[in-house]
């Protein structure tokens, strides 16, 4: 940098851009959720429908993230250690959920697993559908965070363990998994933050039935439509806090990791 006036001008513009885009709207949101004081905030987030939506969001996200941890690691393993025709294509396809618009993800899942399903599976408007949609949109996180670590992992450790008589499960549990755990956790944290806020892929597939398939983001959307902005703002803040706690935990973890592993 160091371009004097240009640099100052640039920083100023950047500050305005970030203020317009992020700071001001987020401040307005926080202010709205707090206008009625803590008692009103508490009342908004403890209404039965809000509680049900928040609980459903957190529980389904936790289940989805656990499935991601297992299958994401297996997929990463196959992509790094295995060799088969078409591997490059499979590797490229992993990012499809990031590239595909979320509403299209919902339509796509309904085409196969909705009404009139050609395989006879109809999960539309159920909690299974929520999990399915979330699994779809969060698929790349664990795969993409484990893959590079697995790639760097020294195979000679595993070979040494094997030559000393360790079985494949022992090698996995004692050598491979401990090295992968930080990457799996960071992938899981990103998946969780994404799952908690997900909206587009859920709109069509869940039917948005209160107390049954209504997740937090959908509840917020409904309250905005009903012009009940205080309730929408209060539950938004809860969702935001859940995602931020996970992000902060992730940052702390990576800091801890670099201190203890390197």
């Amino acid at each position, binding site marked *: 940098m160091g371009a004097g006036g240009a640099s100052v001008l640039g920083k100023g513009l950047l500050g305005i851009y970030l203020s317009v885009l992020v700071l001001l709207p987020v401040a307005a949101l926080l202010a709205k959720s707090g206008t009625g004081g803590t008692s009103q905030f508490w009342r908004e987030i403890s209404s039965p429908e809000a509680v049900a939506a928040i609980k459903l969001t957190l529980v389904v996200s936790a289940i989805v993230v656990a499935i991601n941890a297992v299958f994401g690691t*297996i997929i990463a393993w196959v992509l790094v250690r295995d060799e088969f025709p078409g591997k490059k294509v499979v590797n490229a396809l992993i990012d499809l959920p990031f590239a595909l618009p979320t509403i299209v993800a919902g339509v796509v899942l309904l085409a196969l697993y909705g009404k009139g399903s050609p395989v006879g599976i109809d999960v539309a408007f159920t909690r299974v559908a929520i999990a399915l949609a979330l699994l779809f949109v969060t698929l790349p996180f664990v795969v993409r965070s484990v893959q590079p670590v697995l*790639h760097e992992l020294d195979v000679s450790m595993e*070979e040494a363990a094997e030559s000393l008589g360790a079985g494949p499960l022992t090698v996995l549990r004692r050598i491979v998994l401990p090295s992968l755990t930080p990457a799996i956790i960071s992938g899981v944290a990103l998946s969780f933050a994404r799952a908690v806020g997900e909206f587009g892929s859920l709109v069509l597939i869940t039917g948005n039935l209160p107390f049954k398939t209504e997740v937090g983001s959908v509840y917020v959307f409904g309250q905005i439509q009903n012009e009940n*902005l205080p309730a929408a703002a209060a539950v938004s803040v809860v969702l935001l806090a859940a995602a931020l706690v996970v992000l902060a935990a992730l940052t702390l973890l990576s800091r801890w990791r670099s201190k203890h592993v390197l």
Partner: protein
Amino acid sequence: MSSSASGSLALSPLPAGRAAPGGGGGERADRAVGARRYGVRTIALGYLALLLLAPVAMIFYRTFEHGLTPVLNAIGEPNAQHAFWLSLEIVAISVPLNTIFGIGMALLLERGRFKGKALLGLLIDLPFAISPVVIGLALVLAYGKTGWLGDWLAENGIQVIFSVPGMVLATAIVSLPFVARETIPVLRELGTDAEQAASTLGASGWQTFWRITLPGIRWGVVYGVVLTTARALGEFGAVSIVSGRIEGETQTLPLFVQARFENFDATGAYTAAVVLALLAFATLVLMNLLTRRTRADTAV
């Protein structure tokens, strides 16, 4: 991504401890390794097929089930056309903005020295942690009729919410972090040696940026732009709230998909979804070409 370490399982020497004396034991261990490998591969590919491939293939089948004519009719429909061009218009505004400011943020975070740098980093990543719906709500509360700046905007005749400016804002927020996040590691890799040499030789800040820094980070920036574009084109939740969803006016292509699907116009919904899916595939191809490009660059 995996050429060097791949196949290590197959190449790894047989576990000496378990190999029974004689050729038969080695063969049996070989077969066990092979079976395990096929098992894991089947699980991984089966999961991907059921979750990703089969549903995406299904929508292509459903779209072209009744031939090409209904699809072409659906594409030619005025509201579909309007939605498509509106989406492109929003992308054409928000992506360049995010590219310029994304590079600026990356430079500031990687090269700048100031207090609150960690806070700036958090602020840039914040859109990844917020639900699109919450972003939409926050925009309404800031720029809507009853929002913080509502009166001031109305006095000056500026409508943000329920019109294109709000939709651009929403799109820019959700796709804000990509360029900065993809450029920062490349900047770090690039180092400051060449930049310092250039300024020692009398180059101005601008000259150094255009001749040294930008060429060095270009593929990282382009990669970020691809991700930004894909995200901007597909944005649904935030735009859904700030747009008002008026067909033929403030309806983007993803909003069009939802509206048509809910109104039982399956052909219209599937056709628009397939158009968006094809754009997503184009994104994937670009991403892969660029990854190879970046690696070739850093290898030199």
